[in-house]
């Protein structure tokens, strides 16, 4: 019964007008919604729903905000600030991200600040930076300093390759990174993604993405850990 209910919810939410992968070069405000099916060996099967907004404030600055809720009671909210500078070919940018993830089921909350520099052009996007993570035990006892752990320095990276130019009405990309819009992992925990989008018209876009998260790659003993399939829509104003 619960499974049937979950399936119906996924279908209903998946049909909501929604929205989108960030399309580099876009100067339209956009919102997006996605529904996803996830599995990992820690939580088993679960569903996630995310909502995001893309805000190209001006030609030198854009913002992105994301919220994700999941049936595992692991929710996240993040904001990305992206100053950008056009160069003769492509665009150079700086990305400052603040991500908060609440793992209500486990009684922990993490705050991650990530600062990166990146370069993107039609077929390739590359980003390298560092992150700082605070892990807080929830409920947090402000009188007990041992309820917080800081991992002050870690490396973030992202390499994405596109099959079509950014202006194309459709695109597919392959991406290796240790972060998504909803999680920032440690350096040795890569996440592999395949993303696709199709612009139905100048406003509507449909998205489909898949993600694979192995474990133990840099233990040199790689095995399956988790996967996700996400689908949704975007609306550009």
């Amino acid at each position, binding site marked *: 019964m619960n499974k049937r209910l979950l399936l119906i919810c996924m279908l209903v939410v998946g049909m909501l007008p929604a929205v989108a992968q960030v399309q580099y070069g876009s100067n339209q405000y956009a919102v997006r919604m996605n529904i996803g099916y996830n599995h*990992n*060996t*820690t*939580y*088993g099967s679960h569903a996630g729903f995310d909502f995001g907004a893309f805000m190209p404030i001006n030609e030198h600055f854009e913002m992105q905000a994301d919220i994700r809720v999941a049936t595992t009671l*692991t929710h996240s909210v993040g904001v990305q600030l992206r100053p950008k500078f056009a160069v003769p070919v492509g665009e150079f940018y700086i990305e400052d991200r603040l991500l908060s993830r609440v*793992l209500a*089921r*486990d*009684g*922990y909350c*993490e705050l991650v600040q990530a600062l990166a520099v990146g370069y993107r052009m039609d077929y390739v996007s590359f980003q390298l930076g560092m992150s700082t993570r605070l*892990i807080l*035990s929830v409920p947090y006892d402000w009188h*007990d300093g*041992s*309820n917080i*752990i*800081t*991992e*002050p*320095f*870690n*490396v973030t990276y992202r390499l994405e390759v596109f099959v079509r130019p950014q202006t194309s009405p459709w695109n597919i990309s392959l991406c290796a990174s240790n972060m998504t819009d909803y*999680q920032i*992992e*440690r*350096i*040795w*925990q890569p996440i592999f993604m395949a993303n696709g989008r199709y612009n139905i018209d100048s406003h509507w876009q449909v998205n489909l993405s898949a993600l694979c*998260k192995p*474990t*133990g*790659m*840099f*233990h*040199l*003993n*790689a*095995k399956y*850990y*988790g996967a996700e399939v996400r689908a949704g829509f975007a609306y550009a104003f």
Partner: protein
Amino acid sequence: MKKIIILLSTILLCACSPDTWNLDMIGLVSGSSAGIDERIEDSFRYNDEHGMPIIHANSEEYKVYVATDTHVDRTRTNWKQFINDYRADANCPLALHLGDLINAQNHWDYMFEPVSTLPTNPMKKDTLLVVAGNHDLYFNQWKEYLRLFKTSTYYAIVRTPSGKQDLYIFVDTGEGILGSKQTDWLKRTLTWADSQAFRHITVCTHTHLFKRDSSQGHTSNMPLEETYALLHLLKQHKVEMFWCGHDHSREITNLGSLTSIIVDALFDREPHPAYMIATCGDEPIRYQFINLPSNGN
């Protein structure tokens, strides 16, 4: 063109050092040993047949010697020193190895030989308990590990003369996760432990949870979801100690009532090899580290 060929050949030859051959690079894509759920079945099969070890301490306060990451290959100096030390200590009923016993294949018997031959203090009995690390799984070596150590997911109870009991739980994180079967077993074991009034509960494994000090670089650990789920379990059941290795550099983290200790590597070629001695009595567990000389390059 000739210059390019010479340059490429030089790079390739440099890459062919003995240490390079010790890394199971195929494991970047797919680990060669059985996965965690299959390994758990092997461990449980042995546990079901032989039961869990019960160790008797000679006194109310006893010592546990803890080593990790010996990476035995062409030398084993520190490993032998560790065995000699714990066997000479009349108050040590238990020694632990937290994984990465060997560096790569073909060194199991060389590593195990001192365990089976070095003498122990005639006034006592001692036991060496081991959990598998990622290097122990390279090149499909889980079978070799099983041949010598039989299990990697189990618990041991140390009983003092007055009947007080301490619990040591060993979990296999050779690929950075516990897996669903092992997590279920750990939940059941910790729930059972709640009703047994153990004096201390310690969880021992190979892979570390956190890395706060970045000065020595980072090593791979668990996916974050797995980290938080395991932390929750440890906190929920009031586990006192979490002992691990893998990272090679010491780090002690307190999170609420839990103390997580990454024990230094005992690898001969490590710049600062060390092992830990934990003292377990009626008070919270105390620990100290014994530095050994670096042996070789």
